[in-house]
């Protein structure tokens, strides 16, 4: 049979010598490798005291965006839900009444908006599908929780802080993302 690679190595089946039979030499060799790693740079960090910086393209928790005046951008068009391969997003729409024009940008808005973070695979297709730049994936990840209920993210959990009432939190939530102007 023809070999698939040229890296073929024949197994050495010679009987062991006396030194080899003691195993001591091989143990010392192994321990040397182990102790060498003590002085090397650690691969882990002490989370959550220390946190790594994420790459700019990291896809974490979803955020429902507002415009500069603090109106919700989402119109419950359902494109994120239809794009979602895990079917994690559900929503219910309602019509904006005349006294709610300062809350919502368009005449339809998402009265209910839920993302099941247990289902979400953070693929970012919802962000790509959104025609209103209303949803984006931030650079944080979903914290752990004890119950299932804590993973069903409702609108209160997802909405970005109000840019006028709480500008610091808004800027923090926006992160390194450029402001969307339109």
């Amino acid at each position: 049979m023809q070999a698939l690679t040229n890296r073929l190595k024949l197994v050495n089946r010679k009987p062991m010598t006396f030194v080899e039979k003691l195993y001591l030499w091989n143990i010392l060799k192994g321990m040397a490798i182990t102790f060498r790693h003590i002085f090397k740079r650690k691969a882990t960090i002490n989370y959550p005291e220390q946190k790594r910086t994420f790459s700019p393209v990291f896809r974490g928790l979803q955020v429902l965006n507002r415009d500069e005046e603090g109106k919700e951008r989402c119109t419950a068009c359902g494109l994120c839900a239809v794009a979602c391969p895990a079917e994690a997003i559900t929503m219910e729409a309602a019509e904006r009444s005349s006294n709610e024009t300062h809350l919502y940008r368009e005449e339809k808005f998402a009265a209910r908006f839920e993302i099941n973070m247990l289902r979400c695979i953070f693929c970012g297709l919802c962000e790509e599908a959104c025609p209103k730049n209303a949803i984006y994936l931030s650079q944080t990840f979903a914290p752990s929780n004890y119950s299932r209920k804590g993973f069903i993210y409702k609108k209160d959990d997802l909405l970005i802080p109000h840019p006028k009432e709480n500008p610091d939190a808004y800027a923090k939530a926006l992160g390194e993302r450029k402001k969307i102007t339109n």
Partner: protein
Amino acid sequence: MAEQKQILKVTIDNISVEVEQGTTVLQAARKIGGDVAPPAMCYYSKLNGSGGKCRTCLVEIAAGSSADPRPMPKLVASCRTPVMDGMVVKNITSEKVIDARNGVVEFLLINHPLDCPVCDQAGECDLQDLSFNHGKASTRFEFERRTFEKEDVGPNIQLHMNRCILCYRCTYVADQLTNERVHGVLDRGDHSEISTYISKAIDNDFSGNMIDVCPVGALTDKTFRFKNRVWFTKPVDAHRDCEKCCGKVTLWRRGRDVLRVTARKDEWNEVQSFEGNTGWICNECRFDKKHIGDWEYDGETNIKRHSVIAQGKYPWLVMPKEILPDVMGGRDPKLMMDIHDVSEVNDPIIDLSKIKGPSTSKTFNK
């Protein structure tokens, strides 16, 4: 007529078809079917006199007839051009046609707002399909689009004049289906708009059919307004005994809630015919019968596989048998989660099908 109708032979995109005299090129193309049929925004085979307005069905006539095989100098609207014997038509095989159609779509979209995320027609909109296939991804139009306030045409129909492409189909419905026409087109040219005369309510029994014929989202069902996106609802065919109409409808359901009732559509997105009669439905069936018990189930609606409405629906799948009660000695498992414990969406307490108009924040903040 004692005289038998002459059979004519036409060739459309190199496919020959034999049709009766008096057939239009569009109908002949539809007889072949598939991609050969030109798209139509204003022509509606069930409405007399429709067509000739939108110009999306333009085709090239490469040879007029066998008697006079000269090509026609300009592209013609296929919905208004009768076939001649030996006519050679080019639709998708002609570059001129594709180019002209792209231009027509650009014209149609000049005043059309980009509010598909809000519009209830999205997902089953003819203009959406047309611009997806032929449109540019951007606009060259630099001026203000014409805008109108939304208007109530009767208690159950919402008119968004912004979205109207002036196909006149709805006025033909009013003319031909209802006894007296109370709405029509006001003004001329760029100013023309569909309106009821002095906002007179349309209370005719068949006025709701103008929702079905509207190719865009200009006329939408107010009882379905913002309730759900069409592709999240499940269409099923159903019927009931109705004195006024055929009673054969499509129910658009979410779970057991009937969110919307429409007439059954055929492959050209027109209302289906039953035994030669067009299956228009009356307003009672359309707007008032939103309970599942009002209807008798006829089977699942056939949806084109490439339509967005087909997403998430797997009619060929067989539900596996629920084995848990068998293993548990007849009782249901106690630890099964009720989704409504953790989720607020689709709350069984809020029955959207019972709300007449669109839901508001009050509906959800009870």
